């Protein structure tokens, strides 16, 4: 009996071995296309980059299950940069010296991406940036860098539309004291004044680490009252957004609040609680997958992605996961369209020629003069009601 048991084990072991040998042999018919991923997996962005990683891994597996890119599987080479400039630069250099890597995704933080973009230019490798970028870096129009997220320009245009639709004539902007927030404020003023609105940018600003905006808002309150401001635009991101809303309501300031696309995350509502009721902003489509128009070409993609995220990870899609999804499918699309052999230069040219690619956030079009991809039509208006994101529509403004 003992011998028989041993035999069975032995045979099953042999079968296992042969299967595990056979699988890579079958897959390795064509070499994988490797994508470097340079993310802040540890440090303050850990939660956000975890979502990015989850979504990217899921989409790559889906593509590989579909047979990869013309038989070549995609492979992610993920490196943590620990929210550290030196390590982000080292990862980027490492990726660029590894001849197998076709393109790099990330990093997130402003100054980190400024550095890797510069390395990308020097080494001639595509760098795809997920997080909205510092306008000073974005305006460099670097040849090898592509932005996935909505730029400050289109978000400002869309918010001006929101104000026009709501009939707001006079807006007070309370900006955060960092480049992206300040640039959102500046563009909002420029586009708003073109449309005949009066936009006041407050001299009082706030920092990402401020836990209490009451003092600044106390100083703004008389301006709001004497100038009869229609709404306050909190040009900010992260925890300061809900803090501003909370502090405003505490001070008895009742005017409507307009936010940025950075308000479109569930943790923002959790932080602000009741104070977030009635806040309106423009954000990417993954915030409200099921409220998109029935004829929206993007709707089935977002809903399918949201369902797969829920099934696999138990969390729905959000804007960040959407960016990660779009990144992978943009890469897939560009690889498919590569002329001849896939090289870094061919890949870059193919990505730059992306036309009308439908993905979670909207329809991507890149060109030699536009590395931003999306337009203001890819944003939707959102209002926070009952602790949920509700899509709002205005005739003539979508």
């Amino acid at each position, binding site marked *: 009996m003992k011998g028989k048991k041993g035999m069975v084990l032995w045979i099953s072991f042999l079968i296992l071995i042969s299967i595990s040998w056979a699988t890579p042999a079958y897959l390795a018919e064509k070499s994988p296309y490797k994508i470097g991923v340079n993310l802040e997996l540890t*440090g303050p962005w850990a939660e956000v980059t975890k979502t990015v990683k989850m979504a990217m891994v899921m989409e790559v597996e889906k593509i590989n299950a579909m047979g990869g890119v013309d038989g070549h599987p995609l492979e992610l080479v993920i490196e943590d940069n620990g929210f550290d400039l030196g390590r982000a630069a080292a990862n980027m250099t490492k990726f660029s010296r590894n001849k197998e890597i076709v393109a790099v995704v990330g990093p997130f933080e402003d100054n980190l991406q400024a550095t890797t973009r510069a390395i990308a230019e020097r080494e001639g490798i595509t760098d795809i940036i997920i997080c909205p970028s510092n306008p000073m870096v974005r305006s460099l129009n670097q040849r090898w860098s592509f932005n996935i997220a909505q730029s400050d320009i289109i978000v400002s245009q869309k918010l001006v539309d929101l104000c026009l639709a709501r009939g707001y004539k006079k807006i007070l902007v309370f900006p955060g004291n960092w480049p992206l927030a300040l640039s959102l404020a500046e563009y909002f003023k420029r586009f708003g004044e073109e449309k005949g609105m009066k936009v006041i940018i407050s001299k009082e600003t706030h920092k990402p680490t401020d*836990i*209490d905006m009451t*003092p600044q808002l106390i*100083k703004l309150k008389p301006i709001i009252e004497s100038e009869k401001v229609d709404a306050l635009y909190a040009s900010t991101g992260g925890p300061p957004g809900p*803090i501003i809303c909370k502090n405003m309501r505490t001070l*008895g300031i009742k005017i409507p609040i307009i936010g940025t696309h950075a308000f479109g995350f569930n943790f923002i509502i959790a932080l602000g609680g*009741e104070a977030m009721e009635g806040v309106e902003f423009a954000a990417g489509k993954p915030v409200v997958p099921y409220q998109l128009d029935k004829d929206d070409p993007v709707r089935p993609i977002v809903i399918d992605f949201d369902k797969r995220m829920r099934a696999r990870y138990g969390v729905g899609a959000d804007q960040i996961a959407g960016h990660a999804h779009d990144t992978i499918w943009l890469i897939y699309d560009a690889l498919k369209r590569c002329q001849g052999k896939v090289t870094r230069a061919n890949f870059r040219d193919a990505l730059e020629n992306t036309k009308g690619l439908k993905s979670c956030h909207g329809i991507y079009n890149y060109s030699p003069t536009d590395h931003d991809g999306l337009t203001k039509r890819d944003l939707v208006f959102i209002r926070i009601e009952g602790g949920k994101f509700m899509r709002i529509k205005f005739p003539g403004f979508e």
Partner: protein
Amino acid sequence: MTPWAYIPQLFSAGITIGAIYALVGLGFVTIARASQIINFAQGEFVMLGAMITFFLLKGGGLPYPLAALVAVILVVIIGFLLHITVLYPLRKASIPILLMATLGASIFISNTTALVFGTLPRTLPAFLGNQPLQIGGIFIVPQSLFVLGATFLLLISLYLLSHRTLLGKAMEASSTDPLGADLLGISRNLMVFLAFGVSAGMGAIAGIFITPIFYTSYHAGTLIGLKGFVAAVLGGWGKNSGAILGGFVLGVVESLSIAFIPSGYKDAVAFVILLLILYFRPKGILGSPFIDSRRW
């Protein structure tokens, strides 16, 4: 509009934030009074109190008061553990080494929290809603009154502990006169051990009371701890009343400064005030039992 018009509202905002600095400062003082150690992990106790409450409330489904109580007990245990694992083995080392050890412990606690609870900022529900009370043109959230109340209750209980109980007196003696305490048979290690527990508990209570007004995240402890430390030094290092007064002075000055200068310089103001007070009165406002002013 003249800056004077918003002084009352700024003053009340300053009182709230001052009460928070005072609460955190008290924790620093408790340990200093027992051991002369500056515990830089104090801010982490504040953060842990709020974080643990949040997860017991949302994840564990406990009722709010019970969640808060369990969190305070857990943080007290963490305070004891901090003493047993970090400071007790180093009891023969000099004060600067202990100081570095607490700094290391603070980084360890904050990163462990990030691993366990994640890096997203969290907040707690207010005890009695968010509807602001309007008193003569000044708006106040009910939670601010709770923070003020907690500050005074803690101050009174600390006063009773150190002036009315043998234990409290023993704790103080072990710091001000270590040799005398030894001769009287007071176990100094036990006193420091207890002080860590008391201080951790106070930090946790502070965290639970203030988080509904703001929010907390794994790295929130560092800044709040620093401000609490400044408050304690400002008022008189080593005095409970000093920490309270220092906290209020710091909060009010920080808040009022906004009326006259742009808000970007708010944090700098606190430190300029600290420097000025330390130049002219190194003992702090109320004087410090640890700093001998004759040297200046």
